[in-house]
């Protein structure tokens, strides 16, 4: 049964006109979690980072894990909208905005995690006043800021025609909501030439963003791989982080797709076919992730370098064995089994896989960062470390996730999560004619 254009429009636009009780409760819960995190941060700001579990030699902990994780998660959007667009995968269209929203809303928490980790956050302007480009941190600041900026602009521009549609068609909404659409629509008229130009700019930005994705996550990896610490100083770190980012991002997109499908009754728009495409993509990504893990650890094991082997042992059989093997199970074993069996027919199982992948990827960031810090190059009884995150770090981590969900929920409440204008037949015809 084909849903007509009209019915699709109703499906996508109706949720924007009313607030459900479930939504209010969700927002309330998320705000509560965020308040807890804020309180924890104030406590940390006043008392110093001694309230965390970080120490010498484990100078970085959960905050840096979160930083890498959220920046990695952000690559979902760019991957789905930009890279898949470049290879002409038309099926990505309905997912594009949902994926891009993950990007736009997780990068701020990634960057925010760094600020939370600083010993003297009020001096962060020093990075611009006295910045040294020899430092990987400067490359980080530049590329992540540029990425955040570009993602927001790309997201906004792809949203523009739909904001204008909301402005024009959603008339029974509160006045402030209508005002918001009117202002954000920037006077968009829907003139064919505006669509042509928009499409050109989005195509150009797609190329730019694809390059930026590679740069951003490689540069995040460089913060670790540019030091000479065992376990970090490896050339595979850049590509490994990049693959991991696309992997966790794609898992998150599947979860977002399923949630939105259920919450906004989009069964005819986000179909089983889309989940199947994502399933195949994720199989490939799981295998590539596995390849990198094997490559890195086999190389280490064969080389038997003393400092590297300390960390290897801690990961495989020592203090970090539980997180390491949990990570491996969550990133490789469970997802692959699901994708090859239950995931073929069941969206529910795909969601499980997506969530499990992200749990595994968060653990992977932890496994990359913390074991090396506990066994620095100059190892002695005095420099061997342990790390136990405290409630402050967990509260702030929870608040970051809650913040991401909150922004996402607020966005889907007021804006259509599936692009309407790209689906419209007239617009498609128009754009096809300009390409011939």
């Amino acid at each position, binding site marked *: 049964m084909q849903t007509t254009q009209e019915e699709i429009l109703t499906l996508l636009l109706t949720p924007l006109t009313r607030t459900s009780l479930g939504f209010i409760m969700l927002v309330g819960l998320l705000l509560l979690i965020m308040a807890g995190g804020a309180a924890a941060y104030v406590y940390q700001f006043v008392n110093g980072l001694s309230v965390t579990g970080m120490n010498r030699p484990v100078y970085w902990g959960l905050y840096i894990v979160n930083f890498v994780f959220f920046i990695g998660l952000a690559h979902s959007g760019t991957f789905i909208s930009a890279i898949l667009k470049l290879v002409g995968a038309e099926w990505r269209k309905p997912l594009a905005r949902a994926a891009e929203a993950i990007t736009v809303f997780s990068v701020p928490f990634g960057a925010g995690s760094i600020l939370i980790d600083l010993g003297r956050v009020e001096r962060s302007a020093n990075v*611009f006043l006295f910045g040294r480009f020899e*430092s990987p941190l*400067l490359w980080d600041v530049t590329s992540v*800021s540029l990425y955040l*900026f*570009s993602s927001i602009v790309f997201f906004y*521009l792809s949203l523009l025609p739909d904001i204008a549609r909301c402005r024009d068609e959603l008339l029974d909404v509160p006045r402030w909501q209508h005002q918001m659409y009117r202002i954000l629509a920037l006077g968009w008229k829907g003139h064919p030439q505006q669509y042509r130009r928009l499409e050109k700019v989005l195509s150009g930005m797609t190329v730019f963003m694809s390059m930026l994705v590679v740069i951003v996550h490689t540069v995040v990896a460089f913060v670790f791989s540019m030091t000479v610490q065992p376990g970090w100083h490896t050339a595979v770190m850049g590509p490994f982080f990049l693959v991991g980012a696309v992997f966790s991002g794609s898992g998150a997109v599947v979860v977002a797709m399923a949630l939105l499908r259920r919450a906004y009754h989009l069964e005819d728009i986000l179909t089983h076919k889309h989940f199947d495409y994502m399933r195949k993509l994720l199989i490939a990504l799981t295998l590539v992730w596995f390849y990198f893990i094997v490559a890195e650890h086999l190389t280490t094991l064969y080389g038997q370098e003393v400092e590297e082997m300390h960390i290897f042992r801690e990961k495989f059989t020592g203090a970090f064995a539980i997180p390491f093997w949990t990570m491996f199970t969550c990133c490789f074993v469970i997802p692959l089994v699901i994708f090859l069996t239950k995931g073929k027919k069941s969206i529910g199982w795909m969601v499980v896989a997506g969530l499990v992948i992200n749990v595994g990827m968060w653990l992977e960031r932890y496994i990359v960062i913390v074991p090396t810090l506990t066994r620095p190059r100059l190892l002695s009884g005095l420099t061997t470390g342990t790390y136990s995150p405290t409630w402050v770090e967990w509260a702030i981590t929870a608040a970051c996730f809650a913040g991401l969900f909150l922004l996402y929920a607020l966005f889907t409440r007021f804006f259509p999560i599936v692009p309407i204008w790209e689906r419209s037949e007239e617009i498609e015809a128009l754009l096809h004619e300009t390409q011939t």
Partner: protein
Amino acid sequence: MTIPNMFTTPGIGGIIATAVLLCAAATFFGLTYWILCGGREEEPPWERMGWPYKSTDSERRFQNFGR
């Protein structure tokens, strides 16, 4: 191995980062403006460039040509 001053001097890194972001801001603002300006009444390019003669002028002249 000496590294060029551009990388090691404090402050220059900040300038590079700020310059990159400002360029991006200018580009994005410009592109958005360009998109939104699409569809204004089509003008001949020479008019948009500020060609001194209005089209009505040249038409009049043309009509008078040869008289």
